């Protein structure tokens, strides 16, 4: 019991140290980007979180340690410092790297199926479901058994009864 406690203490210490090391590393990479206006810093932070790093595609520009991501962070920082708008930064990057740098693809003919496809499918499924339910309602299932079916049912029930006796 005592040993387990010790292990837990050591383990949580290690975890805490790891978390601290990584959080300082993260803070360090963004510390070099200073803005006079806190709103601008938030804008910068938000923007690099929504841009994809092309080298490690599951990371945003904010989170990636790749060299290219670092260069692009600096470029976005420079453009915002120069007073360029969010739209200008996005236009700059998509002109060079394509829509792929955006985590949220723009709405245009080639992405219609992506944006509206799911709604179409849900709509079609819902329509089919409603139609089926209405048809079921208008022609209720036969509740009464015919004479033949009743006879067969009795026969089956009797058989089952026999088995239980054995």
């Amino acid at each position, binding site marked *: 019991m005592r040993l387990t406690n010790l292990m837990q203490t050591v383990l949580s210490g290690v975890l805490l140290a790891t978390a601290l090391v990584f959080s300082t590393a993260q803070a360090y990479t963004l510390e070099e980007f200073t803005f006079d206006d806190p709103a601008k810093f938030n804008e910068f932070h938000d923007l690099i979180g929504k841009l994809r790093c092309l080298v490690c595609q599951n990371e945003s520009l904010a989170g990636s340690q790749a*060299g290219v991501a670092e260069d*692009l962070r600096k470029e976005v920082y420079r453009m915002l410092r120069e007073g360029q708008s969010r739209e200008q930064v996005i236009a700059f990057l998509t002109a*060079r790297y*394509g829509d792929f740098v955006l985590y949220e693809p723009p709405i245009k003919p080639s992405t219609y199926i992506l944006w509206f496809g799911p709604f179409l499918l849900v709509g079609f499924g819902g329509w089919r479901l409603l139609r089926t339910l209405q048809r079921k309602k208008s022609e209720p299932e036969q509740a009464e058994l015919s004479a033949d079916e009743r006879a067969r049912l009795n026969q089956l029930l009797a058989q089952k009864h026999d088995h239980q006796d054995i």
Partner: protein
Amino acid sequence: MRPSASRALIPLGIFIALAALLFYGLGLDPRTVPSPLVDKPAPAFALQSLKDPGQTLTQEVLRGKVSLVNVWASWCPSCRQEHGELMQIAHEQGIQVIGFNWKDTRPEALQMLRQYGDPYAAILFDPDNKAGIDWGVYGAPETFVVDGEGIIRHKRIGPIDRAVWESEILPIIKRYRSQ
């Protein structure tokens, strides 16, 4: 076939179509991102020559004939892998290959050329990724085919080997060389 039986096949048909689509998707390489620069003029640049720091190279080096612009660096293993193929392309097939030395240092880049040979007609030196961003470079090696008017016609992401050269790049060079 009775109508209800053929209707029962609809979900199966949808399933097969979806499976085919997803199977096709498995064969695609997610690292290959199409470049928006294809069929557009090559971005302007003014970079030092790798070999002669006093010389400035601009997009004018691309004028007049079809060239390959090959993005490389000494730290990139795949660049070393394709180097022999580039030597062959430049020296035996007479294609103008322009080097685009990217995020590298001058001594290490020159060392690599001394060791493996130099296929390049001219080499742009871009240690800080200045022109690289304009060209949409996100890794090495990458190779652009630029026609005689300075318009980018193709972008290859990843190393060039004999098969890639013959099936992917040579047909494009032939098409634009004849114009």
